[in-house]
């Protein structure tokens, strides 16, 4: 008699977590399990698959409230360690963006600029327990008479600090090359002339959204690992675009879904929120994101069992096409090929490297696995899953 098909709920899995019976594996491990046992048996044996990614994620930043201040101030211009923050909010609310450079940064005045300190570094310094200098000016009102403020603040003294990243954990990303005859400095790293290197940025088979390609389990309210603490997916990130060409396994062949995430900055660890200086490009913040995928059925087991051989991206010329806004695919390449160290392109073997740290991604997936196994982290049912676009209209 055929075995009944596996069908679990998140409540079932949470009950197993509480009982200490949950079986958790990383997406790396799941690839081998599904390959060896098939998706149905894998779904029977495995409850949760953990994923991870650690890379510069420019669309990141933190909401900070630095009040109360005496006398009261309605700040109109604010900087932290000389990095401007957006102050067009209530009196003492600001948003410090990851890519904001310091006011006195020479930028690309001497090209390529070094971008030594910016918003991402401020966030990292705060999380690392360092005091930062807050400067604020105001025009003064009857209720908020204070016109200037200068003080050194530490993260734990702030009334609130929330990391809220509009777009993280891109589901797939371009592989960048440079077909011009000059070195270029991009957000995809330094690209040598004449296709001297190929830079990509993903954790591949460990990457969160490549393990739930059709957004069956993730959405508003999904509890995740964010910056070393517990955080949440709060919806699709900006530029979330499910309607792209996909492989037979459901994974997109080009950039597609994204996550908007938030978490309490005060709980985070500086190892997982690191300031970044991209030569000739700008500042950013490297963020550690780990997402647990509940293995509710064989379909989800199959999706989480995907391996680098089955994941593909497009080669894009950042020397000429991308800057013109005319990025066209110059070829499709698998992550297994990219990870091997070289990709064949235009008759040459081009050295390839990830800008995303696989070591850190794996560490995140392992940490999240440990949290779940120890019963410290329960899964949540999203209030609304991420938009699936035309796929969801079938």
């Amino acid at each position, binding site marked *: 008699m055929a075995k009944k098909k596996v069908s679990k709920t998140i409540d079932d899995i949470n009950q197993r977590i509480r009982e200490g019976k949950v079986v958790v594996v990383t997406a790396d491990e799941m690839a081998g399990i599904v390959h060896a046992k098939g998706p149905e048996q894998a779904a029977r044996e495995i409850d949760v698959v953990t994923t991870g990614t650690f890379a510069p994620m420019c669309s990141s930043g933190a909401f900070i409230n630095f009040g109360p201040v005496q006398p009261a101030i309605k700040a109109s211009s604010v900087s932290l360690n000389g990095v401007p923050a957006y102050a067009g909010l209530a009196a003492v609310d600001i948003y410090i963006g990851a890519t904001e450079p310091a006011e006195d940064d020479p930028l690309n005045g001497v090209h390529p600029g*070094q971008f030594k300190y910016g918003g991402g570094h401020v966030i990292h310094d705060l999380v690392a327990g360092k005091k930062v200098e807050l400067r604020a000016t105001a025009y003064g009102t009857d209720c908020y008479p204070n016109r200037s403020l200068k003080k050194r603040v530490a993260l734990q003294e702030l009334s609130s600090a929330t990391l809220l990243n509009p777009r993280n954990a891109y589901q797939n990303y371009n592989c960048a090359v440079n077909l011009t005859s000059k070195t270029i400095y991009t957000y995809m790293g330094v690209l040598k002339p004449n296709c001297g*290197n190929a830079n990509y940025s993903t954790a591949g088979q460990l990457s969160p959204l490549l393990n739930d390609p059709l957004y069956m389990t993730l959405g508003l309210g999904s509890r995740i690992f964010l910056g070393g603490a517990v955080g949440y997916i709060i919806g699709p990130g900006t530029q979330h675009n499910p309607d792209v060409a996909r492989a037979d396994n459901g994974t997109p062949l080009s950039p597609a879904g994204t996550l908007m995430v938030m978490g309490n900055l005060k709980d985070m660890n500086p190892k997982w929120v690191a300031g970044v*200086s991209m*030569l000739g490009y700008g500042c950013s913040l490297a963020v550690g994101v780990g997402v647990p995928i509940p293995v509710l059925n064989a379909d989800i087991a199959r999706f989480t069992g995907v391996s680098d051989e089955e994941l593909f991206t497009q080669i894009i010329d950042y020397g000429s096409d991308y800057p013109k806004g005319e990025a066209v695919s110059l070829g499709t390449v698998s992550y297994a090929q990219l990870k*091997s160290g070289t990709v064949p392109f235009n008759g040459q073997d081009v*050295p390839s490297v*990830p*800008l995303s740290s696989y*070591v*850190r991604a794996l560490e995140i997936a392992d940490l999240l696995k440990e949290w779940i196994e120890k019963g410290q982290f329960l899964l949540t049912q999203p209030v609304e899953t991420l938009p699936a676009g035309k796929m969801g209209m079938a």
Partner: protein
Amino acid sequence: MNTKKVVLSFPPSTVEDPIIYHLIMDYGLMVNILRASIDAGKQGRVVAELKGDDNQLKNGANFLESKGVEIEPLTEEIRHIEEKCTSCTSCVPLCPTGALNVDRETWVVSHDADKCVVCLSCVDVCPYRAVTAHFQ
């Protein structure tokens, strides 16, 4: 054949002399300039790799000293700060000698000082400031 990495400090009087030319043509040394900063009429500093047999290296050194050029061995050039390094591999394609390399099994980036020619390509490229240059 021996190789020596050296820092050459040129006094103002020699800055406009073709000293490197003489090292190559008269003393048969292979000179690989790794870094040079020269202010005409002031001073110069060249980090170079000199390759030759013992006699060539000795005679070349004598020539440099006769011209008032100070020679110091180059040591402890590039420091790879492992605590800061996330193994993002941004530096790897820019390292001309493979001194900074990634193990494709563990994905850990490491620095092999023996292969390093102190070209400094890695220093500014590292997004995490995990590679620094130190001259001694």
